[in-house]
């Protein structure tokens, strides 16, 4: 254990959605208060969309040396993070996670709060897809 905690970035088309999911995940996670959970929602002017600038700033702010799990909602959020990663405009330790946004965020924050490493945080968020509701 390095003592550092994996960070979590939540990218949504909507600033309100990103901020609320961050609040929900931290609130449900118990130990989540120790995790750097950073929302990157909407455009810099507050409109709906995906902002590369806000994403890059959130990832930098969530990074404490243990890596960052980046969860995204859909469409341009997915493509923007992929394009930024491909061109090395995000730290190497940032990982795009293939997970449902809300459930994946809760799983990631809980797991990160328990001190798990990046691979375990990513795996926990991805596993959220397997939880069936009906």
């Amino acid at each position, binding site marked *: 254990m390095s003592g550092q905690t994996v960070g979590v970035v939540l990218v949504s088309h909507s600033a309100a959605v990103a901020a609320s999911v961050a609040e929900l995940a931290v609130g449900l996670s118990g130990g989540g208060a120790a995790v750097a959970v950073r929302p990157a929602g909407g*455009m810099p002017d507050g*409109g*709906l*969309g*995906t*902002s*590369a*600038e806000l994403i890059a700033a959130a990832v930098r702010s969530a990074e404490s040396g243990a890596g960052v799990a980046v969860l995204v909602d859909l*469409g*341009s959020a997915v*493509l*923007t993070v*992929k*394009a*930024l990663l*491909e*061109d090395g405009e995000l730290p190497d330790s940032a990982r795009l996670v293939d997970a449902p946004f809300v459930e994946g965020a809760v799983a990631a924050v809980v797991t990160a709060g328990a001190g798990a490493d990046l691979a375990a945080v990513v795996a926990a968020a991805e596993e959220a897809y397997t939880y069936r509701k009906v």
Partner: protein
Amino acid sequence: MNASATPDAGPPAGPSGPVIDAAFVRRWLSAATNAVDREADRLTELDSAIGDADHGANLRRGFTAASAAVDKAPPDTPGGVLFLVGRQLISTVGGASGPLYGTLLRTAGKELGDGATAAPQELSAALRAGVEGVGRLGGAAPGDKTMLDALIPAVDALASALESGAGLVPALAAARIAANEGAQATVPLQARKGRASYLGPRSVGHQDPGATSAALLVSALCQVAEATDEESAA
């Protein structure tokens, strides 16, 4: 052919057409920015039928920002200009077209490397690499009703015209026709990528906004090649 007599007429035309240098790509950027600005309402209207009604405004914001960035610190190679425009689109568009067109141009720019000029075949290969990058990023296939349905026919037409010995101007004219036909051919298709795919069969009957803007960008490239050619021949 006395281009040297008129210093303001742009670079001289070579045997295969206009010289592709940084200024050529900047003229394309300017033509593309104008076209996007002029057609923004139509793109948004197409996007309001099957998307989220922001394609025109998003591209206008992206190309305006890209033009400003290039004006502020103009790269001196064609690859450098393409790369910078691509980066700007990724950071400013705000919709899926940003990372998609951004990847296209950034990949093409990288492919061109740091030569001061590019041969038509090099431009053609670079654009193909860019279009393949779009396919990888978005995961769309031909026929999914996306920008690829205009872009793939365009780069195919450009490459095959050059291969058969055509100069840059007629080759780009063939690419423009192929892109426009490809965009029109998206009308009967059902969308399988992006927000429009949620509409299922209801996406049929509408021209894809991304394929439409792709055709505009190809058309701007052809227009600039034609204008450059005429000026230097004048």
